[in-house]
Structures are given as structure tokens and as C-alpha cells.
């Protein structure tokens, strides 16, 4: 699946926007790669659609500076499946399998930026599932959060909540 996406990306990329192809929408990633998509795909991305609407459909090339050409094909793939009504448990499982923890975060940000509710909900669940059995330290590292408890405060809280610390996966330093 990943190969398919990348080959499709190559064929589409670096094609300068052509005013005659008004039927399609051009999404320009942060690293200046152009992805041509059907207007129905754009509709799934509220941010893109409202941009189109604001200009009465005159502008069909949308710069998406916050989204890389690495992440955009995943977003498009998800939207395509969503339109086709083919978001199945199997598809979601396959989709997620391809993504490492950093990529999940990047897509999460992209889904938020593009305002794709379904994808945002789905990725929320993915992140939640991935960190559910992780240690407190892992979560701090994953989100770059600094511990602002004093050692005494933390020790007290941990003691109080001791029952929730069973069954936590050992941290794997290479994982991230």
C-alpha cells in the first residue's frame, strides 16, 4: 500500500498548477509538492473547503504549509476511503500498522489543521491505545512534557494511585 501511494505521489508531484484543470483541487504540501485531488476529497477537509468557498471556487490551489508531502498522502488515502464508505476495522488496522509513533502525531496535527473530524477522532483513539500501557515517563517524553511535581509530591501521588501502576509495559528506548 505504501508503495502505491508513493508512486502516485511521484506522478502527481511538481506539476505546476494548470488553470484549465479546474475540476481538481491542488493541495500544496509544506515542502512544495502538489497533490491533485477530486473536489469531493477537498470537501472532507473542512479547512480546504472553506478556503475554496471563500473565494467562490476561483482558487483551486491550496497551500498547506503545515503538512509535509510525507503525511499528505495518508490524509488523502483516509479521505478517499471515507468518501467511499470503506472505513472498516480492517482498513484502520492496516492504515495504523504503517505508521510509527512520530508519524501518528504528525497525522494527528494534520487532521487537526485540516479539520477532518473523523480522522482526528480515529487518531485520538490510536494515540490513546498506543500510550495506554506506557509508563508516566514514556508519556512525558512522547509529548515533551516536563515534570513539574516536586519529588515528594510525585511520590505521594504515586503511592495514592499505586494500583494503576500494575501491568505497565517496560519502556523501550528505541521505540520512539
Amino acid at each position, binding site marked *: 500500500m505504501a508503495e502505491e501511494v508513493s508512486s502516485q505521489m511521484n506522478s502527481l508531484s511538481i506539476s505546476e498548477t494548470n488553470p484549465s484543470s479546474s475540476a481538481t483541487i491542488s493541495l500544496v504540501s509544506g515542502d512544495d509538492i502538489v497533490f491533485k485531488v477530486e473536489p469531493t476529497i477537498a470537501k472532507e477537509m473542512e479547512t480546504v473547503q472553506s478556503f475554496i468557498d471563500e473565494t467562490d471556487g476561483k482558487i483551486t490551489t491550496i497551500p498547506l504549509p503545515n503538512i509535509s508531502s510525507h503525511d499528505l498522502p495518508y490524509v488523502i488515502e483516509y479521505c478517499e476511503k471515507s468518501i467511499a464508505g470503506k472505513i472498516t476495522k480492517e482498513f484502520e488496522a492496516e492504515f495504523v500498522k504503517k505508521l510509527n509513533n*512520530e508519524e501518528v*502525531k*504528525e497525522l*494527528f*496535527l494534520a487532521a*487537526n489543521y485540516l479539520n477532518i473530524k473523523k480522522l*482526528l477522532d480515529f487518531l*485520538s*483513539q490510536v*494515540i*490513546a*491505545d498506543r*500510550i*495506554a*500501557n506506557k509508563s*508516566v515517563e514514556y*508519556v*512525558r*517524553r*512522547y*509529548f*515533551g*512534557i*516536563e*515534570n*513539574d*511535581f516536586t519529588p515528594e509530591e*510525585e511520590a505521594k*501521588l*504515586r503511592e*495514592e*494511585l*499505586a*494500583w*494503576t*501502576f*500494575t*501491568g*505497565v509495559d517496560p519502556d523501550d528506548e528505541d521505540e*520512539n
Partner: protein
Amino acid sequence: MSLLTPSHSRNASTSTTFVPDELITEMLPYLTVKALIRFRCVCKSWNSFISDPTFVKLHLHRSSQKANFTLVSFNGSVVSFTSLRMFENPPIVSTLPTYQLRDEELVGSCNGLLCLVGRSYVDGNTEMWFRFWNPATRIISQRLGLLHNNNVVFSFHFTFGYCKSTNTYKVVALTRTNVRVFTLQDNTWRDIPNCYVTCSSSAVYMSGSVFWLEITNIYVTDYEYDYKIITPKQIAIISIDLDSEILYGHHPPEDFNEVPFVAPNLSVLEDCLCLSHDSKRTHFVIWQMKECGVDDCWTQFLKISYHNLQLQLNYRFSVEDFRLLPLCLSEKNDTVLLTNIFIEVEILGYGSVLASSKRPDQRKIENLKKFLRMTDSSSNKFMQPTIPKFDGFYEYWAKLMENFLRSKEMWNLVEDEVTASPQN
């Protein structure tokens, strides 16, 4: 929704992707209870955010897709099934902290909270109290709502429910002489005026109201339900709205024109009130009230012969054999789990039968029975280390108590307790 307090300690310059606080708060409600409580240790703002009542409500909303149903066994273990996947997955088992709750039994569950009633008998008087327990957060209240019953002949029937407008929980007590409502927030009992209960059978809670059956226009001198002396018109369904504490009357289905020889029962299936009863000692019938209001709308949900139920009826053909009660529906609505309510201990062990308009899947039944049996013998398997208690501050306690449980939430709690797999 309140967001995490702005944090100066976030390090945006690290190589990992920076997720802003407001997006993290989007994700948090998707976590399980156990993980959430552990992650209160991440930092101060997570700690306060996760403990916030707004968040707790959000989490409840997120996790309450399909209701569980809960069974409690004699030795004090609570068994909870997700009706979504009741045959595919093992039930959730947790044992009540029996060293504390020796004399208490389950009244009901609502939003993941369990309501327990305790009784003690002193000089012919009964003293009763309630506790509210959230197995997912392991928080249990003190004894609340103390009741005295000087007349041991008049037993109480309790139902536990949630009152949306005031965001509090209530217990409705039905006795032979009156209806009383206990409000958790004020820790007070209130009598409902001009309300007399006759011959009430089990009451149920459904979407903000408590329903029970009543025989109208009759003076019954003892407890026995006697079908020979009543007509179908005398059987009515009464409900009390927990918000307003106003009583409503409902008619049974039009076609309910014969008084069953054992008392009919109320239950809730798929968020619909159900009336179930015997018909001519040959069939079991379930009616569903599709719409509750001025013109209550009933449809016949199931009519099945005892023969097709593969119910091994006792040859005595006694009343007990016919006291079936539907517990829940399977995901595809093709299977309903029934229980015999007469001998309580058999609810868990052996009295459970599965009914289906098609052939019941024998393998599924065996799986379920296996687990019911296992849970029956699971006393004290699950020890509670420390249980925070209600300290008198309702607001604070309530926010801790609110849901957090539901569906898969309890799975984490008992992951070590359920050992066998139902798939095998």
C-alpha cells in the same frame, strides 16, 4: 471544555513532534480509566485536568456507547458484561471488598456506579443504609441514607438511577405503604405524597425514570400475586420522573388481555422498557415500549414457546419455573439472555438460558455458562488495596465518583483476574 493550563515547561524544540496542549486534551478522553489515573502523575496540569468534573463527564459520554449489565453473585463478586460482545468476550469480574461490605448487596448500577444496600437486624427492627461504589476508580462512599423499618412485614424494594437536571443520583424505595426518594446530593429521604404501592413487583430504571408494576383498585392482604382475583385492566405501570419526582401512569399493551398466572416483570432491553410474562403456561412473551409518553407505543418483541427455549422446566411445573426475566440482548439483536429470577443464586450458576427465534448457538451458551460458573466461585480473588471514602464533600466526591467505568473501562481492572479465554 477547559483546557490544560498553559504550561511553560513544554519543550517545543526537541526533535519529536510537538503536540499542543489543546490537542492533547482532545485525545485524553479516549484513554481507559486506569491509564488516565496513572497519567495524573505526568504533570500538574494533567493531574488537575483529569480530575476535573468537566473532563469526567466528557469521558463518561465518550465511553457510554452501549450499556453494560451487571450481575452480582452471593459471595459478593460483581460480574459485568458488555452487551455488545457478551458472547465473544469474557465478562468482567471484580469482587466487592467484602471485609468492608459483608452485609451489603447490589441495588443496581448506573453510569458505571454501583449502589449497594446493607441491612442489619436489631430487636426486630431493620436498619438499612446505602453505599455507592465506583469499581473503576475504586472509590466507595460511606454509609448513606440510613433507613429504619419497624415493620419487618413490609419489605423495601430499591431502584438506583441518575437525575440529569441536578447531576446527582437517586434511590427510589418502594414499600407496601409508600414511595420514598433518596437524593445523594443532600443525603435526604423524601416521601412522595399520595402514592400507594400495591403488589409491586420489581422496579427498573430507564432514562431518568423509575418504572414499576402495580395492581390498581385492590386491597391485597398478603404478598401473594393471585391471578384469579385480578383483571388485566387492573395491571398498570407507574413511573416516577427522577427530575421532577412526578408520577405517571402507563397502560400495558392493548393485547395484554389475560392475567398471567405468575406476576409479569419489567425490564429494560435496548433502552426500551419491556413487559414480560407467561402466556398460558406454554409461551414466554416480551413486549417492548417503543415510545414512552402520552400514547405509549408497545410492540411484541418476542413470543417463544418454552419448548423452543430448550428450557428444562421442572416437572413440578411450579410458579418458580416460569419467573423468567430478560437480561440483555446480543449485538445483532438475535439472542436474548434470560434468567430465572426466583432462586437468586441460580442467576449466575445454572438458571441462565438463552432464547432465540432461531436455534441458540450451543457453543456460545456453553461459553457463557462456563464464565458464569467461574465467576460464581471467584470469591475474594480481587483484593482492593486502598479505597478512598466519601468525606462529606459531595461536590468533590461526586466528581471522583462519576462514571469512569463502562464497557471496556473495567477490563483493565480485572485483567489479571480473568484467566480463561472464552474463545477456546
